[in-house]
């Protein structure tokens, strides 16, 4: 049976550090390799940053919900915001070159896509955007 861990927090940057710590604790509890744990934490922080800044427009009264699902062979993390979403199908087909020096922002999805085994987006009715990150696990 998978285990679920749900965390909800206001859209404030200071809570991202807490999310990083939570990811580290869960990864340690699951016995994941440090490299895998780091890739998960980096991707989750990027997803939460997008939810905070783009989805919730940094509005602290809007919460971010994160649902972590632990399976023996996989971990998946859902991140929900209250935003209107974006054209993710178009974006995923034309992910910008990360080394483009003209762009200050816009590398988060590239990082998530490279570090996780799967990334998907869904606009949830009466809610907002949901990003799901999945990582197949290799035990240390």
């Amino acid at each position, binding site marked *: 049976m998978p285990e679920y861990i749900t965390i909800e927090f206001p859209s404030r*940057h200071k809570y*991202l550090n807490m999310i990083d710590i939570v990811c580290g604790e869960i990864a340690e509890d699951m016995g994941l390799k440090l490299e895998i744990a780091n890739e998960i934490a980096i991707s989750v922080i990027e997803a939460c*940053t997008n939810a905070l800044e783009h989805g919730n427009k940094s509005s602290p009264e809007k919460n971010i919900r994160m649902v972590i699902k632990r399976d023996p062979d996989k971990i998946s993390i859902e991140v929900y915001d209250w935003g209107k979403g974006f054209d993710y199908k178009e974006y995923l087909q034309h992910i910008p070159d*990360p080394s483009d*020096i*003209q762009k*200050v922002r816009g*590398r*988060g999805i*590239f990082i998530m896509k490279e570090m996780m085994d799967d990334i998907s987006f869904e606009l949830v009715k009466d809610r907002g955007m949901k990003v799901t990150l999945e990582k197949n696990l290799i035990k240390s």
Partner: protein
Amino acid sequence: MDKLHIEEEYVAEAAILRLSGLVDSATSYYLESRLNELIAADKVKLVIDLTEVDYISSAGWGIFVSEIKGLRAKNGDIKLAGMNPDVRDVFELLEFDTLLTPYESATDALIAFDSQESNNLP
């Protein structure tokens, strides 16, 4: 703004910025603002010592690369030194190694600035 600290040292024409903590979307504005102040004061040879930096988010990386063009137009550059393996992994993932040469230490980065200077002598 307590997650990122910047210490500065000036060696000849170069400025060394020793960062410690996290460079993320919350702290990157502070870093960007300091870099812009230095560039406006014609300090364009910048060494960023990342030895004490645990993590750089995509927003943080964006600050470094966005300054490259302006700095090089003024005969300056940005040199990143002392990246830990986790930071280096993302640096390479983002293909920034095609834009910036990483250095083991701030001293190595300063030597590289000196070498460039010597090569530019008539």
